[in-house]
Each structure stands twice: as C-alpha cells, then as structure tokens.
C-alpha cells in the first residue's frame, strides 16, 4: 500500500516480539500444497548469513517447505543481489525472504513481488523503507548493550574506541551510534577514536594497534562485528594489554564464542542468526497462510560474556528455551 510510512525497524510501533508469535497467532497453520520459499541474503562469506540460512533450512525441514537460499558474491554487490532476487520472483516462489545489501538495492523487488502477489519479508540488517514485513533485531541495541556493560562493569569510566564496519552501511552506522550515544551520555567515558575497520580483520588489527599506541590507557574496544573484534584481540595481545582492555564484537559467530571461552574476547552481542532464520521463515509462512502479522517481528539478542556463554551456545532448542526465558523476564 502506497500510504505505508517508511519503515524504521528500530522504532516501528506495529511490532511483536518473536516469543509471542505462537501465543498471539496460534500453532503453525496449514500451508497450501507446494509452498516454496525463496531467500536471498548478503553474502555467504560471513558466518552470520550462513547461520541465518541454516535457520531457514531447519524450519523449512520441520514444516516440509523447500527453501532456496542464495547470496550475492560479495558484501556490496548490490546489483548482483538484485539480479538474484528478481530471479526468485520470476521462478514463482510463494514467499521471499530478503536481507538487502543496502536500504534500497532490492526496492524493485517489492513492486515485482507485489505484482506477482508474493509476500516479501525483510530479514535483518538493512531496512527497505517500503517493507511491509520485517523480521530482525534492533541494530542500534547492539551498541547500546555493549555500552551498558561498560557503564556497569567499569564504573570509573575511561577511554574507549570504536572500530566501524564499512562506511555508510546501515548496521554499522546504527551500532556505532547506539554505542557512542549511550556511553557518552553516561558521562565518565570518552570515545577517543571511531575509525573504519571495513569489516576486515587486518585493517582492524592495524587500527587497534595504532589506537593502543596512542592511548595505552584505553579500557575497551567496541567493534561492529566479530571478525574485526577478533583482529583487535590479536592487536591487544600483541600490545600486552589483554588484562586491561575489554574487547566486544557483534554477531556471535562461533569463533567469537571460542575466543570468549578462551578468555580473550570479552564479549559479543549475539543476535542468534539461526533462531532469527527460523522465526523469519515461520513468520513468512504464516503470511502465506493468510495471517496478518504486525509489521515488525523482533528477534532476540543477548550480550554474551564468559559468564553466560554456555547458556546461549547449546543445541538449538536449548538456546530457544533460554531466550524464551529471557523474553519472559523482559530482557
């Protein structure tokens, strides 16, 4: 509908938490025969997006819906991703799940899908303003959670630094802003550097080395994703500051968990891609079945540190249970 306001997934009022889907909309409905779902994501070079695909697949298997999962050749391949999405529309999938490279590069899909009467669910990260359905977490909240950790665990404040993702990418901008705003408002902290890491381990390593050289009294880093955070960890180790500098990443990839358990990475904000994939496909299929879901289905995230890593890294069902408990507790 043309009168739909541009979506801001972080603030949209018409939303529901993932944990309430079943309570509000009942058990999973029966689907028309031959229902197939098509999904396109950013890239498979990042574990996050592969895990999302696993979530699609596991839910698809559970309800016997075939899912095709494709991805662009690299992060930033905007037109390539559009080509893929157009191909999926052409092939007549009953529902599309898209994780766009940017806010606008899959825009044409919205119209084509509408014309073909195929619902489109925007899953995480970049947000298509015209999206009628969005499943994902609040990007800004990523940064906010890390900032809160510092405020709580480093009551004396101090110098912190941010290593950003690719310049101009939605998730990077939001995460950085959430962290910076929250920690600055707390008063005692100073953000001494906020520099580009371009989602790249090596670049982040070099940037962190330089920052540490200039600010040996730094107390912490926040990185927009885990790959960069792991690069920073190496730089901190190389500078011999691992006991003094806390390092946080984002995404909760398995390497991040391993590093947290090894006591190197301080923490990460896990946004549970597998679960997100499951919830996204469930929501999408509920739409196919004719249910009217709210515009945004919020998926969980949690700040993982050494203390709680085990709780969130078990088998799928265990994590789901833990997250449902969190949701009930209002986290």
């Amino acid at each position, binding site marked *: 509908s043309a009168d739909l306001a541009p979506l801001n997934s972080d603030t949209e009022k018409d939303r529901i938490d993932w944990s309430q889907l079943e309570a509000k909309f009942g058990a999973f409905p029966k689907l028309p025969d031959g229902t197939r779902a098509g999904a396109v994501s950013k*890239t498979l070079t990042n574990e996050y997006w592969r895990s999302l695909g696993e979530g699609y697949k596991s839910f698809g298997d559970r309800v016997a819906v075939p899912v095709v999962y494709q991805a662009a050749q690299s992060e930033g391949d905007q*037109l390539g991703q559009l080509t893929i999405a*157009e*191909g999926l529309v052409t092939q007549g999938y009953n529902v599309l799940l898209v994780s766009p490279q*940017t806010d606008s590069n899959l825009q044409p899909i919205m119209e084509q899908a509408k014309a073909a009467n195929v619902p489109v669910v925007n899953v995480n990260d970049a947000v298509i303003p015209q999206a009628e359905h969005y499943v994902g977490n609040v990007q800004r909240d990523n940064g906010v959670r890390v900032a809160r950790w510092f405020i709580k665990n480093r009551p004396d404040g101090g110098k912190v630094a941010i290593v950003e993702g690719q310049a101009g990418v939605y998730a990077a901008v939001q995460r950085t802003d959430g962290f910076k705003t929250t920690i600055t408002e707390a008063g005692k902290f100073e953000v001494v550097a906020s520099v580009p890491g371009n989602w790249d381990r090596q670049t982040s390593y070099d940037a962190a080395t330089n920052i540490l050289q200039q600010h040996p009294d730094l107390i912490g880093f926040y990185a927009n994703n885990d790959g960069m955070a792991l690069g920073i960890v190496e730089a901190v180790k190389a500078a011999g500051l691992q006991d003094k500098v806390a390092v946080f990443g984002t995404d909760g990839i398995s390497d991040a968990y391993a590093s947290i358990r090894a006591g190197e990475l301080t923490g990460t904000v896990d946004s549970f891609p597998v679960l997100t994939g499951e919830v996204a496909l469930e929501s999408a299929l509920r739409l196919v079945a004719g249910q009217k879901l709210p515009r945004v289905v919020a998926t969980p995230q949690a700040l993982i540190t050494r203390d709680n890593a085990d709780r969130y890294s078990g088998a799928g069902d265990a994590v789901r249970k833990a997250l449902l408990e969190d949701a009930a507790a209002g986290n």
Partner: protein
Amino acid sequence: MTDVTEHTAARPRADFLHRFSVRDAGTLIGLVVILAVFGALVPGFFAERNLINILQQSSINACLALGMTLVIISGGIDLSVGPTAALSAVISASMLVAGVPFPLAIAAGFAIGLVCGLLNGVLVAYVGLQPFIVTLGTLSTYRALALIYTGGNPVLGLPAGFRAIFNGSLFGLPLAVIIVAVVALIAWVILKKTPFGEYLLAVGGNEEAAYIAGVPIARTKIAAYMISGLLAALAAQILIGRLGAAEPILGNLWELDAIAAAAIGGASLMGGKGSVVGTILGAVILGTMRNGLTLMNVQSFYQLLATGLIILAAMLIDRVTRGRG
C-alpha cells in the same frame, strides 16, 4: 608488384569489414552458446519475461561499459565510474527530494558526471598521469565526497514522477533498456562515423602519430573520460529511478564489470581497439551468466567461480578465434 603485395591488397574492403565482424561474431557465438546451455538446463529460461529481465539487468553495466569502451580505446581506463555514479546519484536525489524540478535535478546529475570525467581527463591528458592511477585516486575521492555529502545515509523518497521517467516501459521493453540501446547506437555512430571516433582510435592506436597529424590529443582523451562520466551519471539516474533511493555506496565494483564487458567484447587495454557491438554483447553475456546461475540456484561461491571462469573462457575463445591481440 609481387605476390605478397597483391595478396595484402587483395580483397581489401572485405578484409576490413571482415576483421571487424569476425571478432563480434565470436562474441555473439559465445553468447549463443551460453544461452543454449542455460536454455537446456533451466526451464522457463527463454520466457519473454526472463529475457527482458536479462536485458534490464545488463542495461546498467552496458551503459557504463560503453563509456569504458571509449576510454579504453583512447588508451586509458576509468576505475572511478562507480563512485562517479554514486556522487551523481546522491546529488540528483537530494535535489529531487528538495523539490527541484526533474529536468534540473537530472541535468545536475549529468553535470556531476561530466565534471568527474573532466577531472579524470585533465589529469590524464594535460598533467600526463597514468590513467589507472588517476582513476584509482578519484575512485576513493569521489566515493568519499558522496559519503561526506550524505553523511553516509541513503537519500530516500524520490518522487514517483521521476521514477516513472526511467522506470517505465515502451513496446513491452523497459525504458532503461531502450535508453541504453539508444546510447549504444549513438556510441556506435560516434565510433564508426565521426571524426571524434577516428581520433579516439588514433590516440589509442598511436598517440604520437595522432599528435603529428593534428589530432587534438588532450581534448579527445578528456572527451572520452567525460563521456564515461556522463554515462556513469546516466546509469545512476536509471538505477535510482529503479530503486527509488540513492545511496552513497552505490556502484561498488562497477568498474570491474564494465571492464570485463568491454574486454570480452574485444576492447584491448593497450588502446586503439574496441567495439560497441562487442561491448554490448559482453555486458549481455555477463548478465546472462548471473541470471542463469541464479535460476539454477548455484551457490554464491560457485557463481563467483563461474564468473571468473567465464571471463577466462571468453578471452580464450577470443584468442582462438582471432589470433593474438
């Protein structure tokens, strides 16, 4: 004279035309083979809708690749097309959003493209820097300007009227395809029929000879870069019309696709050689590959592999059909 001379002089007219079309025919055969393979493997590949999709998906790359072809013929290269497009897009878009009339906003976008091309051209032609390095530098510079101008945010909410201009269709073909077809025709006429086309070939083929013959070297080169910038701006308008938004990070890696299309189509990076028809075919080959592989649900790593291999295969076929080049 002797045999030899007679031989080289024999069938001369046919020879020239001949050489020309052999190369393009090679590219065409490549395209046909790829089409046939996908047609056999993918049901519905030849559906009209899908063919139109392929054309539409190739149109932006084709548009850039045409400009790239002219630059390559002149002996240069333009790595900055993506950022040029981005800068043009965000400036046009923010004017449109601010309510500036369409023609003015579009003209401003084109002007940006021309200015970006002008700067590249001046650095190459008057200052005498290496094209690869100049446009590597402006690649970063223009991108940074687009990011700074927008603060990194996309410009959203383009008026529907504007989008209709580049987003409509005519005779069942997307307007974008028609626009690019017209551009290709113009480029073909320029290259084949006008003095400027000859100058391009001469400057790229033998700069010193061209200079001595009185060809305006600097102006010819600059014009090539300006056309490339203009076509990048046109691609940007088409794209933001389609997307309804302009992003400062738009056009990432466009230069590689455009160069690949031109090279597959027979342009020589040594300059002095290139074909408009070949470039268009090259762009369609790349578009067809993407489309077909997607329809076959080939996983992205293998798509990447296929992209690499098709470029190598195209060049190998080229080599075999045509001799060293």
